[in-house]
């Protein structure tokens, strides 16, 4: 790993924390929209408005995939890289 990462991690120790918070907030936002979509789809399907149910389903699915894609940016557990690099540095 390049030393760029190491210095980045050392100078911004809170970075992963912020990233985590941001991702969780986005996921919660996605969930809220999905709950609202499900609610309106149910209500409208009862009123025989199926088009809205389909639109809500597609929207909900897209939001889910957005959420999945966001997981890619989850920071690593326990700052593994940070620890590893620090211990490597010890012997320098």
């Amino acid at each position, binding site marked *: 790993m390049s030393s760029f990462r190491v210095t980045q991690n050392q100078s911004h120790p809170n970075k992963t924390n912020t990233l*985590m918070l941001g*991702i*969780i907030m986005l*996921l*919660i936002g*996605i*969930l809220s929209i*999905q*709950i609202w*979509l*499900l609610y309106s*789809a*149910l*209500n409208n*399907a*009862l*009123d*025989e408005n*199926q088009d809205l*149910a*389909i639109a*809500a*389903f597609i929207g*909900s*699915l897209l*939001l*889910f995939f957005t*959420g*999945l894609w*966001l*997981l890619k940016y*989850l*920071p*690593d*557990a*326990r700052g*593994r890289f940070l620890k*590893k690099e620090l211990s490597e540095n010890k012997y320098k």
Partner: protein
Amino acid sequence: MAYEPKEKNPPNWKGDFPIRQDEATHVTRREFAKFLCLLSGGLALGNGYVVLSSFAYPDKELEGEHLVCNTSEVPVGGMTMFAIKGTKEIPYILIHLAEGEWRAFEQKCTHLSCAVVYRDEVKKIECPCHNGWFSADTGEVLQGPPPRALPQLSVVVRNEKVYVTAFKDTIS
């Protein structure tokens, strides 16, 4: 003896499901985020189910005429309850609005499915649960939380007997 992990750099999934309790505290936010994503998938599935069920089981129109009761059984201003046998049994109410004027509605409130009742004093249908009111004439919502009108059936009176059929806008 201190715990020493065998692998120096375990794969992510091992880090997410550690054996020791104190290590688990460090990864709960990762798990939480994944759990949120799982929930989101569940909601998307639920939405799909709504679509499927609305296509697979569209509300069937009532077929034919169904005998409810004799006209003498319900006085003017009175109400009776009935159900039509079928795949799913829906409760209905039959209202004798005025001489020769009959109405039939579904008894389930469109808000949260409480049973509605006809109030002759005000000539309206009341849902006691959340103070919802419907027009006894058309089933339209007059007041309160219900979002939709009560589904209606057409009433036919023949030979002193009351029958119901699927609702048509032009009442015969």
